[in-house]
């Protein structure tokens, strides 16, 4: 099922990830982990943007999170 970027942001921040909103005319926000590893967050429609399972899977793989646990927090 689709997930709102607003919820992804909240769940990521709860895991210690920093959120940086999109700049200027850009369409992507970014998440940044403690080691400086960034991941790009689609933000075409701001926090209302919806993403599907593949995005959640990639995000969880990037930060080595358990996908089922992350989805449960959305």
């Amino acid at each position: 099922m689709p997930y709102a970027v607003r919820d992804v942001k909240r769940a990521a921040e709860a895991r210690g990830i920093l959120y940086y909103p999109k700049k200027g005319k850009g369409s992507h926000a970014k998440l940044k982990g403690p080691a400086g590893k960034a991941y790009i967050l689609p933000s075409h429609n701001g926090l209302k943007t919806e993403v599907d399972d593949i995005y959640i899977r990639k995000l969880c793989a990037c930060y080595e999170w358990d996908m089922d646990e992350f989805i449960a927090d959305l």
Partner: protein
Amino acid sequence: MKTEFWFLFERSEQLPDTWVAQCLDLDVVTYGRSVEHALEMVLEASRMILDEDAEAGLDPLARRAPKEDWDKLEKLRQAPKAYIPVGMMNTRQDDFRIFAVQTEIPKVAQVRRRPAVKRGRVAVDVAAAAVNNSSYGHSAIAL
């Protein structure tokens, strides 16, 4: 330094009228409402990752997508009837569900060189740049 990257585009199974765009080399995923929009978005997201990793002293190629994602590309490359002219992508978007393009990632400044130009026109320009850089003789590969 690697200059050309593989991008895979698939119709979203969960979001209507949406293309999921992925840079396989960087394992970056984003979305677009059309092929052109998805291409513009994935180039922007990929450029951001390259810039962020350069700033953090990280190797962006260490992000490489897992084998199952590259297998989709291999399947496309091995299907002889899967090649279509990129110029027809606009008119035949309803005819396919997955395609791939290999191209360079432009600087953000290049993508938005003409801020006065309307968004749709910029998207077309980016798509044209990708087409011209395709290693498949101005063709994308699609299934």
